[in-house]
């Protein structure tokens, strides 16, 4: 077998050193009645590299990938162009096949990347500190709610209507078991987010207000007003960013009063990958750092006085604190954080702004064209690269009909909110720098055909 270097002669010689008659003697602690006599029946046996590649290639061929059709999906996962050097660099074995940097003398590469990544995320979000990443945006969002609970010693989270429904569901799952209260209602098809409704829900029991920015319908909430109301009640503002490219144009949440800023980093460097692995971004004000979950990299010096980096403040973490840890999280999304870091290093603040401008321009072109499709209206007042259109019929059917015409037309609100009949006609559409004028025309034409 091509991945197993021991030869039959090696095995015999090694058994001799061990003093065992056969390899089965080494499994003597496994109860005999449970030990399998041979390979499990009915499963295929080993295969050549070529055969496996053929099998996987055939499965991949059954999918219609984003690059094969006019493509307008978003809703928390965004298609952006990733510079070729990003994937080249993350495949260097020294990054790809390293472990968590527990031995800092021989892991400065990973550690310095994490320090650069933490700085990039903190500056992007407008907060003082960021961690070395979480699993994804949805789990980072729950961790922020849990962290706000620890800080304020309160158990009620007020969640804006515009939070991604998968994020809401993730928080609800956890809250059911921890006894936290989640105050949430589904969004309405309105041009502006429900700022006054969120503010009205804040009370003396509220640990935090969770606001997505831009929100699931692509609208842009007034973070500063919500921050003020939250702080007046002794609650924290948690801002959630699912499209970090938006922060090339929009004011950083930390500058608008957010105390904890979390997000999905996938849009920068990572790619769609059918939903994972992605990376959770997590930043906060410095005074809360000891309540933060997840790995942190810090600067220090070595025995010769040279600057170096180590994992730090690990007394918050499970491998030291066990059941008293701030979270049970053990990994970060290391390789995805590296991809984010390299892509962001290529972009810089200037490139990010240019990229955001192109995204916004394409989305405006898309909105102008779709507004001219009979029966279709654009819902949003403001938007960045994603917005909601209202169709004359159930958007789920329309998405399926568009796919039959080889157009990946968007995400229906019906799929995201199966229980909300009032949202069934809503369709989320996104344009990025990858979207061409031809793509926009193809969607508009297909939509005209489907709705005719």
């Amino acid at each position, binding site marked *: 077998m091509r991945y*197993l270097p*021991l030869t039959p002669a090696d095995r015999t010689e*090694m058994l001799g050193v061990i003093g*065992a008659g056969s390899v089965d003697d080494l499994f003597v602690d*496994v109860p005999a009645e*449970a030990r*399998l006599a*041979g*390979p499990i029946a009915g499963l295929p046996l080993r295969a050549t590299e070529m*055969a496996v590649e053929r099998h*996987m290639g055939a*499965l991949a*061929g059954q*999918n219609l990938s*984003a*690059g094969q059709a006019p493509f307008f999906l978003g*809703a928390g996962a965004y298609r952006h162009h990733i*510079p070729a050097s990003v994937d080249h660099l*993350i495949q260097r074995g020294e*990054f*790809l*096949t*390293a*472990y968590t940097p527990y031995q*800092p003398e*021989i892991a400065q590469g*990973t550690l*310095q990347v994490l320090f650069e990544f*933490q700085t990039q995320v903190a500056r*992007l979000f407008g907060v003082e500190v960021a961690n070395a990443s979480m*699993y994804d945006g949805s*789990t980072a969002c729950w961790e922020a709610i849990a962290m706000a609970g620890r800080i304020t010693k309160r158990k009620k989270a007020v969640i804006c209507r515009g939070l991604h429904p*998968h*994020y809401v569901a993730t928080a609800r*799952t956890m809250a059911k078991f921890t006894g936290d209260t989640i105050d949430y209602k589904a969004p309405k098809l309105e041009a502006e987010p429900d700022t006054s409704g969120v503010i009205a829900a804040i009370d003396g029991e509220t640990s935090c207000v969770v606001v997505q920015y831009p929100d699931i319908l692509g609208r842009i909430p007034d973070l500063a007003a919500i921050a003020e109301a939250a702080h007046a009640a002794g609650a924290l503002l948690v801002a959630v960013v699912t499209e970090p490219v938006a922060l*090339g*144009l929009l004011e950083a949440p930390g500058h608008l009063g957010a105390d904890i800023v979390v997000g999905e980093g996938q849009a920068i460097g990572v*790619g*769609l990958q*059918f939903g*994972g*692995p992605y990376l959770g971004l997590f930043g906060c004000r410095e005074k809360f750092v000891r309540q933060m979950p997840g*790995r*942190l990299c*810090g600067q220090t010096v070595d025995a010769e006085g040279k*600057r170096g980096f180590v994992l*730090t403040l690990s007394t918050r973490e499970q491998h030291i604190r*066990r059941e008293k840890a701030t979270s*049970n*999280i*053990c*990994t970060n999304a290391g390789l995805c954080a590296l991809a984010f870091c390299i892509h962001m*290093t*290529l972009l*810089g*603040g*200037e490139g*990010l702004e*240019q990229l955001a401008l192109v995204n916004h321009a394409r989305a405006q072109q898309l909105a102008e064209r779709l507004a001219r499709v009979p029966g279709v209206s654009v819902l949003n007042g403001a938007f960045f690269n994603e917005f909601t259109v209202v169709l004359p019929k159930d958007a789920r059917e329309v998405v399926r009909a568009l796919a039959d015409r080889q157009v990946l037309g968007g995400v229906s609100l019906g*799929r995201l909110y199966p229980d909300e009949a009032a949202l069934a006609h809503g369709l989320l559409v996104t344009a990025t720098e990858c979207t061409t004028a031809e793509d926009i025309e193809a969607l508009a034409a297909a939509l005209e055909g489907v709705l005719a």
Partner: protein
Amino acid sequence: MSAVNAVGWRPEMGPAQHPEHESSPHLTASGDKGLMLEEPLIFELGRPGSTGVDIDAVDRAVSPALARFRRKAQAALPGLTEPEAVRHYTRLSRQNYAIDLGPFPLGSCTMKHNPRLNEKVARIAGFADLHPLAPQQTARGAYEVINQLAEWLITLTGMHGVAMSPKAGAHGELCGVLCIKAALEARGEDRKVMLVPESAHGTNPATAAFAGFSIENIPATAEGRVDLAALKARLGPDVAGVMITNPNTCGLFEREMKAICDAVHDAGGYVYCDGANFNAIVGKVRPGDLGVDAMHINLHKTFSTPHGGGGPGSGPVVLSEALSPFGPLPYTARMADGVVHLVEEEDAATMGHSQSFGRMAAFNGQMGMFTRALAYILSHGADGLRQVAEDAVLNANYVLRSLEGVLEAPFGKTGPCMHEALFSDENFPEGFSTLDVAKGLIDEGFHPMTVYFPLVVHGAMLIEPTETESKAGLDRFIASMRSLAARAKNADPSLKTAPHFAPRHRLDETQAARKPVLSWQGG
């Protein structure tokens, strides 16, 4: 710009900056030493306002509706050109040790070779460039991958079902523990205690606490296994279940696993098995045959998806018939016509999964890890996976028996180990410890083993060679370990200052924690 930092190396720093080393012939003006290359931070290299990406020019004005939300100043981040960025990250990469460079014998972490075929298939556009909410008719191949992997995991473990969505091992633990909690609630019971052995990974008690359980320890026997009598004595109507690692963190198979499961079930509880060490037994025994109710499988361990410097992981959880109805959404199901369907919130009730505890994360799980793991499994097949476990256990026992003469092996006398060999620093002279051996291994060109874990052994050294090390490679490692054990026993002072040949020497972790500097402080 000037790359100045108060404490670190900087480009203009020459020998004169180090008066104590002034006469050393080993210093250079550049700070680099041959192939040992120093590298500043991007913030010290980059220029403000520059970018390394060419983007179509557009008007800088934005729509009037958006203008009031506009960022006042660009994020203060440098942009490096491609040659600068490639060189920066390539130079940094060379400061890392990795499996591609040599053995990485971290016990419990399973650092095995990462086949490059798996990287290649994960990057096929049909997987890599596929949106998680793509219309179902355009993602059948992706559902098929998830379902095929799920079928393999169920068959290899002898379990009833599997939850594919957990993002990593600890997230899988959470999934299993939430299934237990949901099952108890469905029975109308509120059991508050989770039993966890002292030798458990820290994630076990942290996970149970995260899910609202209180934690009690189960003692171990002198042989390093769960004390069945003590466990039975503690079981009762307040105990929700136990979390047991098998093979355990001492590298031993829990011989009484079946009796443990029976006792817990008789008392109305459930058994969570931490499957971090499944690689030792894959194809040799099915946890389902022993009575386990839930077990996570670290795809990045047993099935070799790359660790990537600390993640991403992936932690599918296999479930017993009793717990399967409570598993999370979404999941894949093969329909009567053979086509695989993704079951989301919309169809959960009609698909008979209305007892699901809900969603654990956005979207459909770690697809990029599923494609790699499936390619790994198909490459090995049922026969190759069995060989994986056998070779991993053979390699570990070879290390155990080759080193037990020079290092204390606390459980070596009572029988073979599984996939990892455990030693202690019990017989080291005053002032020498496991840490010194670990740092000495760095000088020898190896990554250290897991140190000071499990906590039940003094100065634990947990060595997991994995099946992808050759005998010649193991012999080199063993020779280095024997040399280091001898140096420790002889109280060699040079071992106390190891590593001598790494890019950095012992780093001051106390200073890092006392005055945390977590981001670059320059402008």
